[in-house]
């Protein structure tokens, strides 16, 4: 019975304050404006990295605070990380094909 829910000490209800939510909202809005602004300057390949980093940061804020993952069980986190890992598998392994086409110099290999 190691992880049965109602014996889980972590399970105690946690209610965030309005202030927390408001701060997060402001942070999200600022990040949106920031990322939209950065997109108009030429940083070379950094543009993609910045845009995606900001998106990841925003995702983390929403997931951790609005979706309460900060206080969730370990299992929820495993589910979340596992899901993202599988998305990575899909992209990564598909690109072992697309990114190595033509390396051999024989069309179609």
């Amino acid at each position, binding site marked *: *019975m*190691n*992880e*049965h*829910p109602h014996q889980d000490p972590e399970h105690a209800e946690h209610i965030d304050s309005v202030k927390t939510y408001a701060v997060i909202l402001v942070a999200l809005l600022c990040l949106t404006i920031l990322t939209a602004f950065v997109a108009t300057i030429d940083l070379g390949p950094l543009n993609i990295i910045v845009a995606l980093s900001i998106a990841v940061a925003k995702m983390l804020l929403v997931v951790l605070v609005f979706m309460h993952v900060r206080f969730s069980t370990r*299992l929820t986190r495993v589910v979340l990380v*596992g*899901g993202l890992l*599988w998305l990575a*598998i*899909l992209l990564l*392994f*598909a690109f*072992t*094909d*697309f990114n*190595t*086409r*033509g*390396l*051999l110099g024989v069309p*179609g*290999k």
Partner: protein
Amino acid sequence: MATAAVLERETYLNASYGLKSWLLTKDHKRIAILYFITISIFFAIGGTFAGLIRLELLTPQADLVSSETYNKLFTMHGVIMVFFFLIPSIPATLGNFFLPIMIGARDLAFPRINLLSWYLLILGGVLAIYAMVAGGVDTGWTFYTPYSTSYANTYVIATALGIFVAGFSSILTGLNFVVTVHRMRAPGMTWFRMPLFVWAHYATSLIQILGTPVLAVTLVLILCERTLHIGIFDPALGGDPILFQHMFWFYSHPAVYIMVLPGMGVISEIVSTYSRKPVYGYAFVAFSSLAIAVVGFLVWGHHLYVSGQSLYAGLVFSFLSYFVAIPSAVKVFNWTATLYKGSISYDTPMLYAFGFIGLFTVGGLTGLFVASLGLDVHVTDTYFVIAHFHYVMVGGTIMAYLGGVHYWWPKMTGRMYPEHFARLSAVVVFIGFNLTFFPQFILGYQGMPRRYHVYPPEYQVLHVLSTAGATVLAVGYIMPLIYLIWSLKYGPVAGKNPWGATGLEWSIPSPPPTHNFDRIPVVMHEAYDYSAVPREVEVG
């Protein structure tokens, strides 16, 4: 049902009556029965298509059906068998019925969603059957682009929609199982006390959850592309048809494990019960299920060796493919070791289990051939591949399914089936199966390509053998249908635990009451602890 007259006790079968009480039931056991009926019908439809295919291939010329019809036959055979029979086969029936009982739960976590899954399967099936009746579909069950999006003139959209809907059925079943296993275990039912059947279903559910959505979105893109011609897979507009193959096989390769893992779970139960020994290497068998589920996601590219995929991707996928072989081999070795010094009885389920182990071994070892880059070039898209996956799907999954149905039949219906007929049918299935599919290995090695309506005459002898085997196989499948239905009324009443098996499902009456347990059990023993089973003689 007839059982009501004999047993005065309330069971899930006689708790309420009428069609409505079944169609609106939330009881996982009743839903399992609904699935049984549904997938049996799909199996019959898919089997009929298979029969017609084999009949047509009796001669090298086209004499039974036209090319158009033949192409529709093998497509619909594949679609029905894969998406409407094999995927739901064991999980939705035996899994649905026994997974909650085995972990000591009253029901699945979400009974309404469970019922919804069934309706989704029905809806998907209706769409697929509509496509069949309206004129059929001829793309092959793989829907390769650009043929399926730009060239086929058949009912691709209805079929794809049907599979899309049925996919959600599969996702919801998987979701239900995962939550149930995590949150509904009885006190004392730790992870390592769970029967291996539950482990196998847990692994299966993970694949359903992680893989099926990708199939769903692939089908959505197919639908967009076919209706709007927006170019996603169309090389004329810059699309890449190989992208479709990646997305399709990202689901469809792991889907093979959706089909076979539950079968492995069934075999673990059967082998243990009829050797009266715990499964050898319990933890290894349990973890090998998870390993198969995980590694199964990393190997899809081995379907694409000659597709125009890059050589380096081929190398990576081939290398990883061999990793799947190991957990599968571990399972086979452990089952065999379980027999060692056991007390083995040859009841029908055990005969099916022997069949499974043998046929799965052949299917698995030929998998090594097709995983090899060099050999696959020759045998891919030939009858060798057909034979290989039928050894795994039919020789594996269906053998396990039949074994499981026989094993739990007394529990589900409260009746015993005629043992002699059942043993005979197991033997007939085994012989018929091998006669059908072994010649196809040779055919494939000789170069007979798959999906050929007419073929060069030199292949005829083996095709005739295969068709003859299919006839035997059909007899083997029809026999259980007859005597199992017969047993519902005339079979001897089964006791609580006719096999002397372990597991919570054998601790409750047959058939079980609606709420499974009068009192939620407290589990004090490891899985397969035969010393804990009372050695009573069962009386009806």
